[in-house]
């Protein structure tokens, strides 16, 4: 049963991911991207990573996709803008490199397949909301606080760049 769900969800994720880049209409691309994210969330649940699955839905499928849609709406693309083929100068080279990377990844995955030991060395709360929260505010308190500085920098930079009057 679990295997059947896994195969089904992975197929959905891969097909939707392909459709993201094969669609001309950016709105349709974004919708397929949402599908990919939801399928990934289900895969995370199968890995017993419920917290990451929830984050995946809330942050990616929710917040980030809304941002994408807003940007596309603000760009106000017309239908004729979708039609143009992107000319890639190094298309054969790009495909060759992508294939090399794909084969490399497959070799690595194949070589790294180790009989899984479920739950080895992991505490019961690993990956749960409680576990992540505790780590975040104890071990990783400092990088967590540092991200707030990062946010200030990003806001400052965005304001400087977006300001009309120079």
């Amino acid at each position, binding site marked *: 049963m679990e295997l059947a769900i896994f195969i089904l969800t992975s197929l959905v994720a891969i097909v939707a991911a392909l459709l993201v880049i094969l669609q001309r209409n950016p709105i349709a691309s974004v919708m397929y991207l949402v599908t990919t994210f939801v399928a990934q969330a289900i895969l995370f649940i199968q890995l017993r990573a419920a917290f990451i699955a929830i984050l995946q839905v809330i942050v990616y499928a929710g917040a980030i996709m809304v941002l994408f849609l807003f940007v596309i709406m603000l760009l106000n693309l017309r239908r004729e803008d979708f039609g143009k083929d992107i000319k890639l100068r190094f298309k054969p080279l790009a495909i060759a490199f992508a294939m090399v990377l794909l084969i*490399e*990844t497959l*070799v*690595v995955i194949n*070589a*790294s397949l*180790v009989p899984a030991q479920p739950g080895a*060395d992991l505490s019961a709360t690993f990956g749960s909301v409680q576990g992540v929260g505790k780590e975040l505010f*104890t*071990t*990783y*308190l*400092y*990088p967590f606080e*540092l*991200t707030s*500085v*990062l946010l*200030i*920098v*990003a806001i*400052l*930079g965005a*304001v*400087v*760049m977006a*300001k009309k*009057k*120079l």
Partner: protein
Amino acid sequence: MPDLRPMLPELFLFAWAIVVLLFGISRKERSGDSLIYLTLVGLVITGILVPIAGYGNLFGGTFVVDKFAAFFQIVFLLAAFFAVASSHELMKKLSADRGEFFALILLSTTGMMLLASTLELITLYVSLELTTIPLFVLAAYRKDQLGSSEAGLKYLILGAVSSAILLYGISLVYGLTGTTFLQPAMSRLIEQSVPMLLASGNVNMALVMAIVMMVAGFGFKLALVPFHMWAPDVYEGAPTPITSFLSVASKGAGVVAIARVFYTALPAFHDVHWGTLVAVLAAAAMIVGNITAVLQSNIKRMLAFSSIAHAGYVMVGFVALPQGSIVPPYGPASLLFYMMAYLFANMGAFACVIAFEKNYGSYQIKDYQGLSKNSPGLAIIMTLFLLSLAGIPPLAGFMAKYYVFLAGWQQFPWLVIVGLLTSVIALFYYANIIMQMYFSRGETSLTKAHYDRPLILTLILTAVGTVAVGIYPEPILRFATEAVKVFPF
């Protein structure tokens, strides 16, 4: 509440960035002079705070200040100092957002200082972003110039891609070890995690993937070949003080990060997994950087390619690790020394470019003709920096190259030979500018050249640094040797 004393310089610099920002907003003045001096004062105080704060370990190892961190903190502060001091001319061209400009430089410097002082991968990543995000904005700061916007956008996109690749490598390391803390025990954890692979051929594929991803990610920051494509366009388009800051401080940030990760956690895999890989990239950087630099007609592009080549020389020092009975003289200390020597010469050369652009309004190498007649002082000082970059004794650049090559000789003699041969090519294009300045007859300019005070300060300090480090390298070399003792080899 932990004792935050070791963190004092970073906290102060962050607070000072906010002060500069508010000062810039509250006072609308025309020149921006007081902002430059305010920023410089902040950088000097931070520099004084570095030895006062001392060494220490905070937040369970996510924040660690040791000698290695302190060395690079000084490098970053000096780079920021010179970049700020040479941006007077830029301030005159900007009509607004001056406070933000300096605040972003200070915030980026804070990020670099934090990057130097961590032994934890997530913190390393966050500080690296804190370093680069302000630089994206700074590269695009001349919104009225197309080239500057192009530079910012290119840097942003490639920076984001390289961060993603780096993160993938980091996640693989976490997967192999189960910890994000860089520690000598990481090597053992990696060996345990996939034991059967070590029996077959001694190459751990997942580790290879992790190393390749991380080298690529840091390689982008360092502008190593083949991850250098962004550098010439960004260096050319960005405002020149930012270009100089990018070429030294951003490169230094890459060096700090790659040294922390590879020296602390992965020295055991140097032989089989990453030594030769990085050596090949270093050779490629020296060859491509130096040969392409010869072909350039724009001095900013030429210095961009020369900085790619210098990334290659730095990496020669990087791969010279002690292995078993082989203990290369100087070893990784040569890497630190090279950064210091490169800092003075390169920041100085860019300050000369700014001074030339201010008076003669050009970035073309052919316009340097006859500079020795129009501004003899500038010509002499520019010659000094170019000779140091080329590696002519007794200047800092020579000592740096000497130590780096000596360190690399035992393990990678072919790499040192490539380095020596490409140095000859480098001498050709550096000497070309000197020839233009001294032996070509150019138009005699009637107006007397004018330099502003902070720029003169930069030129003098970098020139003194270039000569002093070359003639008396012992103190810096000794500190560098002490600094690399924090690593477990």
